[in-house]
């Protein structure tokens, strides 16, 4: 028995000492202090952020960034509780949310677009829709594909005399927030009906609900004569049939990375708020521009302007965070197109530069590179 205890003690000591030594050796290969940053929030930008974080590891090997896609609401809660260094959100903070997370900056880090996907046998491409028609379909006012409202804008397609099956997201999501924001903008009826309007979930009067983009896509692909909305990256990767939608310039525009970036660029040239101002009224919907796709939105990183409010924040951590954010809105953007995300146009990057430069720790500005 004595020898067994001794052996166990020796093994324990070896494991503990080895672990500590290994941690020290591995964590600072070049002698600089290892820093770990954590963020959580929206799931929409997760593929892009993951790719950025991996790439950033080769740029700054001593900085470890961790982002958990737990949903925008969870991200805002974590920011409020100050358990993360930054949060991700698909929607800008509402006024009430700004009060519980005061002095949080909005940093748009990439752009989301929502496509209207459909499954009509023999109509693989070319469906044209207007905002009002889409709102009427999702409200159950237009129930047949050959309704005169749809047929009028699709003169060269023979639409079937068939009931429309509507598919929507069942989970609260930024995609729904963007889509219902667009419907609220183009249809006063949608905006004013109780329970509809803009939201991460709304009280859908009709239709089938699918969980996530894949859930909605599954319903659309498995149900003939259906229509639904799916995030751009997802519909591009899965070759779904998507409608061209009429923009304010009067053109029917198909969703793509180019038409998405054009929309954001056009809107940003009309002015965006400063990073520390309220963004609750900001939207990039129905943007001006000949080829601007109308259902587009920012997705944001949220970070406190004065970082000393976060427990455990240090000078080196704050510096690492600012440098990471700077990298995300500059070099990091090059990773976007390969993942079917639209890169930020220059005028948005400039606004972000001012926001990131305004971040302080104990009142001191932090170097961005």
């Amino acid at each position, binding site marked *: 028995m004595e020898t067994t205890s001794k052996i166990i003690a020796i093994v324990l000591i070896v494991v503990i000492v080895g672990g500590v030594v290994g941690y020290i050796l591995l964590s600072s290969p070049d002698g600089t202090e290892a820093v770990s940053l954590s963020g959580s929030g929206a799931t929409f930008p997760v593929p892009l952020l993951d790719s950025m974080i991996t790439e950033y590891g080769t740029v700054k090997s001593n900085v470890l960034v961790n982002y958990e896609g*737990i*949903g*925008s*609401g*969870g991200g*805002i*809660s974590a920011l*409020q509780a100050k358990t993360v260094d930054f949060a991700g959100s698909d929607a800008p903070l*509402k006024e*009430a*949310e700004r*009060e*519980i997370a005061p002095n949080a900056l909005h940093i748009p880090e990439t752009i989301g677009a929502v496509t209207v996907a459909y499954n009509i046998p023999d109509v693989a491409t070319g469906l044209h829709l207007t905002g009002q028609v889409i709102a009427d379909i999702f409200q159950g006012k237009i129930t047949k594909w050959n309704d005169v409202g749809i047929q009028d804008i699709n003169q060269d397609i023979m639409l079937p005399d068939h*009931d429309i*099956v509507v598919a929507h997201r*069942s*989970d*609260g*999501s*930024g995609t729904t927030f963007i889509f219902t924001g667009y419907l609220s903008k183009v249809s006063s009826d949608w905006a004013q009906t*109780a*329970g509809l*309007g*803009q*939201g*991460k*979930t*709304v*009280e*859908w*009067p*009709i*239709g*089938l*609900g*699918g*969980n996530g983009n894949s*859930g909605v896509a*599954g*319903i659309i692909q*498995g*149900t003939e004569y259906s229509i639904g909305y799916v995030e751009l990256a997802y519909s591009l990767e899965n070759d779904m049939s998507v409608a061209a939608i009429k923009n304010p310039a009067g053109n029917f525009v198909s969703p793509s990375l180019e038409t998405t970036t054009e929309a954001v660029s056009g809107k940003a040239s009309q002015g965006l708020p400063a990073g520390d101002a309220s963004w609750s009224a900001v939207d990039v919907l129905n943007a001006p521009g000949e080829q601007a796709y109308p259902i587009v939105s920012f997705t944001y990183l949220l970070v406190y302007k004065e970082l000393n409010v976060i427990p455990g924040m240090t000078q080196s951590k704050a510096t690492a965070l600012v440098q990471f954010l700077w990298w995300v809105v500059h070099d990091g953007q090059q990773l976007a197109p390969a993942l079917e995300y639209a890169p930020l146009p220059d005028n948005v990057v400039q606004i972000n530069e001012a926001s990131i430069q305004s971040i302080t720790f104990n009142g001191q500005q932090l170097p961005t590179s």
Partner: protein
Amino acid sequence: MHWRLTGDNLFKTLATILAASAAFILLLTAITLFNGSLPVFQRFGFSFFTGTQWQGNVIGSEVFGVLPYLLGTLITSGIALLIGVPISLGIAIFLVEMAPKTLRVAVSFLVELLAAVPSVIYGLWGLFVLRFWVLDLIEKPVSAYLGWIPIFSGTPFGLDVFTAGIILAIMIIPTVSSVTREVIQAVPNSIREGAYSIGATKWEVIRHWVLNYGRSGIFGAVILGLGRAVGETMAVTMVIGNAIGPNAVPTSLFKPGQTMASLIANGYLEASPASLELPAFLAVGFTLLLLGLIINVVAHVMVTRVLKIKGGAVE
């Protein structure tokens, strides 16, 4: 008696703490849920249980009601029991009373394997395979001939309360059948021999003696299955169609609906912490917990009063 540090005493204390921890966790969950949902109960009172609306986007004018999801949970679980329990009983009776030994081992193993399949797999299979079988083989014909009956009305798409009930039935079969099998196996052979000796047929022996003797255990198995069906989330979310608000009131079996568990899974993550939305989801969780409690109490009363079984009759 003076408490002394002996192995026995230590073990007794440890076991007591472990036993208490289960009760403690339940209590903690209930308190957390109730505290979190208090703002909703204060604002809506009892109308939270009778309301059908779910509007949380405009802070200050939120309206929440849990009724459609409460009904959705009860109806899908009810369908699951109606379909799942007879099948489970059949499996258990076959395995214990009829199957040759080699077959018994193989079939029991396969049935228990069903329990090891993660619910998301059932959900995927339900969404991509079962949905179309249910739609083409059951819902379309029934809708065509019996569509005039309110509970079969509407155009079926296969993503509805009925499909969710069938998925749940499949999911409770391993639990119900394996517990029932254990119960039937525990029926003493002397009971069977006595019954045979007075000239009962196999059917009569099973019907009047074996099942009767084991009824409290079998009832317990059914309650276990019901518990699983009420709380099942992922698979249901994938096939129930996830309607919301008044549209989710399950007026027809062939209509998309929603259960309490799937509502929470769908909406909780994105609920705004600044509005009443988050408390509303916690209130749904509290209602679900309450429903579980009611089911268990009713089950207990049924076992002791209605079935008139005294403790220790079986097991």
